[in-house]
């Protein structure tokens, strides 16, 4: 199957490989590099699952998907990164709530680098010694994250918003949960979720689909068992767990993040509602919105609101974050404005401008091999087939769609406010550095 973006002429070929792996390729011959991403639908939120539909629930320590991501780079002879480096390819990986992605980009020797990628992810090498060695590195990564106010603010927000959903936990896990991870548990997760039928290979750049398939043929097995495992989510109430969460850190100013919780959605519905929510929050709190100017003028808000819509299987949240000495007053003003706009309606001219802006972002945003590969990966994991769906959907959205979304997804009674205040005595002289 070939999908085409009628605005730009970009194409995305989707091929179901005999191994079960989905292959997606966007050929961009004018660029000097190519990117490849191998993704599995296994992320930080998949800590409860059934090995088959009728099996008992298996529970894993939070952070295991991320630990697995680290450990897969290990080969018996050397690390996969050493092989990539010898080819001149830049490799890395990341773990999100709903996915783990291994990727590289290179200006040369793409076929050989792709072999390395497919090979190392499909051949785990876990030993007690190498798993133990990694623990120290991951603990340091966690300590760094715990010193990052942006990370803590979001983690605290989700912990307040959700009762049971695993996004309550940090992607890296906790000191305690990281200590519980063993080679056997890592292998169970790999065997369960690194099934090729649960994965996709997304490539973009100065390569061809035929090249990619040829290498997949050479490296991957002829067939793979069907995916039988089923992720399990505990029931999640519609209301937030706590309306307000607060902690202190060594930060210069009080920081806050507001999250509106609403019903989860899947596939195209999730994408459509995410786009609508981004438009609506921009209209209400973006840097040309009356509310924003009022808050800035009164000194309640410093600089700008950063707004976002975050969603996955079993959860949906719209967020606004910033700095203020009185986050509760900002939150109250935002809720008041939402109530006003629900009654009086969204501004039609600003809706048209914001839609234009989103259209421009969508077109420019896909203009590189890395961005094209990202879009294909996201489309695969999120369950909407096309990487071009974003621009296509945007063209169809109306003011009435946005008003409807406002009513459904911005409930002032269903929000959490996460606050980080500066620790007392912050600026006292504590040394000579």
């Amino acid at each position, binding site marked *: 199957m070939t999908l085409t973006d009628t605005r730009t002429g970009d194409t995305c070929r989707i091929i179901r490989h005999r191994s079960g792996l989905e292959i997606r390729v966007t050929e961009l011959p004018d660029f000097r590099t190519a990117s490849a991403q191998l993704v599995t639908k296994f992320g930080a939120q998949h800590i409860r699952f059934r090995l088959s539909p009728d099996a008992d629930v298996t529970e894993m320590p939070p952070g295991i998907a991320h630990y697995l991501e680290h450990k897969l780079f290990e080969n018996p002879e050397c690390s996969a990164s050493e092989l990539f480096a010898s080819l001149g390819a830049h490799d890395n990986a990341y773990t999100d709530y709903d996915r783990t992605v291994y990727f590289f980009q290179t200006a040369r020797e793409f076929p050989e680098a792709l072999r390395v990628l497919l090979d190392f992810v499909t051949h785990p090498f876990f030993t007690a010694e190498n798993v133990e060695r990694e623990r120290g*590195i991951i603990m340091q990564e966690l300590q760094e994250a715990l*010193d990052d106010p942006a990370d803590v603010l979001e983690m605290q927000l989700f912990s307040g918003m959700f009762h049971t959903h695993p996004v309550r936990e940090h992607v890296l896990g906790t000191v305690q949960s990281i200590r519980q991870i063993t080679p056997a548990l890592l292998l169970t997760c790999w065997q369960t979720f690194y099934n090729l039928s649960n994965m996709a290979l997304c490539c973009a750049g100065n390569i061809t689909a035929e090249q990619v398939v040829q290498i997949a043929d050479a490296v991957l097995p002829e067939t793979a068992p069907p995916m039988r495992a089923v992720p399990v989510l505990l029931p999640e109430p519609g209301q937030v767990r706590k309306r307000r969460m607060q902690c202190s850190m060594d930060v210069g100013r009080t920081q806050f993040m507001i999250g509106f919780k609403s019903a989860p959605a899947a596939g195209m519905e999730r994408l459509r509602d995410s786009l609508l929510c981004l438009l609506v929050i921009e209209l209400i709190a973006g840097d040309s919105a009356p509310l924003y100017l009022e808050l800035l003028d009164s000194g309640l808000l410093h*600089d700008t609101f950063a707004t976002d819509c975050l969603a996955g299987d079993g959860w949906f949240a719209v967020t606004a974050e910033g700095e203020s000495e009185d986050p509760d007053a900002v939150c109250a003003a935002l809720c008041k404005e939402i109530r006003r706009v629900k009654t009086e309606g969204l501004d039609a001219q*600003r809706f048209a401008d914001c839609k234009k802006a989103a259209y421009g972002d969508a077109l420019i945003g896909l203009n590189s091999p890395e961005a094209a590969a990202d879009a294909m990966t996201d489309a695969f994991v999120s369950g909407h087939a096309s990487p071009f769906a974003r621009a296509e959907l945007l063209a169809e959205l109306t003011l009435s769609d946005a008003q409807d979304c406002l009513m459904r997804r911005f409930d002032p009674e269903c929000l959490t406010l996460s606050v980080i205040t500066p620790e007392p005595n912050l600026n006292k002289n*504590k040394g000579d550095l």
Partner: protein
Amino acid sequence: MTEQTLGNGIRYTEIRDPKFRSCLLLIRFYTPRDAQTAPVHALLTDLLTASSADYPGLSALSRKLDALYAADFSARLMLCGDAAALSFSASWLDDRFALDGEDITGEMLRLVTGCLLRPHLAHGGFCEPEFSVCRQNLLDDIDCERNDKRLYALQRTASLCFAGEPAAIPPLGERSFAEAVTPKQAYAVWEHLLRTAPIDIVCILPSEKPVRTALEAAFAQIPRSPEPVPLSAPTPLREMPLRCTEHMSINQSKLVLVYQFREIEADVLRMLYGILGGINNSLLFLNVREAKSLCYYCLSSYSILKGVLTIDCGVQNADLQAAEDAVQEQIGLLRRGDFPDSMLREAVLDYIGRTAAQENTNSGTAERIADGLMLGDSRSPDEIAAALAAVTKEQIMHAARMLTPAAVCILRAEEAEEP
């Protein structure tokens, strides 16, 4: 690629590349800095991109940018040795994608030149409320410099290492000076910059557009007498390395080691930096992170303008000495040439890969060209790659022996806060 001058110390470079769907315009103003002007420079990057005489107030400009398909006009402050560059960047969707046939390029050129040359003024200074809001933002940003612990440790180390030099001034300046800036003073600094700063303009376009003509006409209105800004300002060599510690309520300590050097050739330095900590499988990554599991990150960076190489990592208090020893061991390996020859090749490939990836975006391409102009290096990436490939292990060993320890600085996690 065409390189021209617009006259009066303005260099203009234009590249046409049809693979891009957007246009990119980068304009850098170079200026010396001191304690008084440093916060003004930071303030100007915010003020001049917030409003103009054509788009006064706090929202008109951002509304216009939205209506131009998410066009962007922003700026950042770059430190270049003891000097600074105010780097303005505008990007916009190519006209061929406009849904209603708008002349986006024409509108953006008017918007950008308007912001830079016709700011929103009253009584000889920047207008309110923009000025007060932007100054408050600056004060908040200065207060929040400590939020990113890694950058904070690097910044505090620079302040100590370069004490008495302009490079010691924090990027956003000192709070007390920022508080004292007035609308008139800020505009006076900008006026002076417009008249005297060496200016580099880089433009990346998908097709031919009258950008050069528009900019030439706009800048011709300013009476200019450019003054050269020296960028290279090596810090004086220290006889004894500094040792300093600051305590902070954090989970992970930060260790920063600084080495000084003189007369290391740029290509040799780039190779040394890559093998030590720049490439994916650097000595620091393989031996400090992977083999000893001491940290999650251990990275190196360098400033050829200040003559320093910096290594930094995040570690537990208990491992601080082990990490410092491990970093020094890696410098020792470089000095003895005790690293595989394959690393030389990997460092060259790393450069080739990084520059190729950088050129996948018009902003990356523009930044690469502007950096080359700044450093007086007009070579293409292929020419630089060839020069890097010619660097020998002996040259790297020799360069490593010229590194002298300048500082060991620690941002130490308070014991009570440790996990």
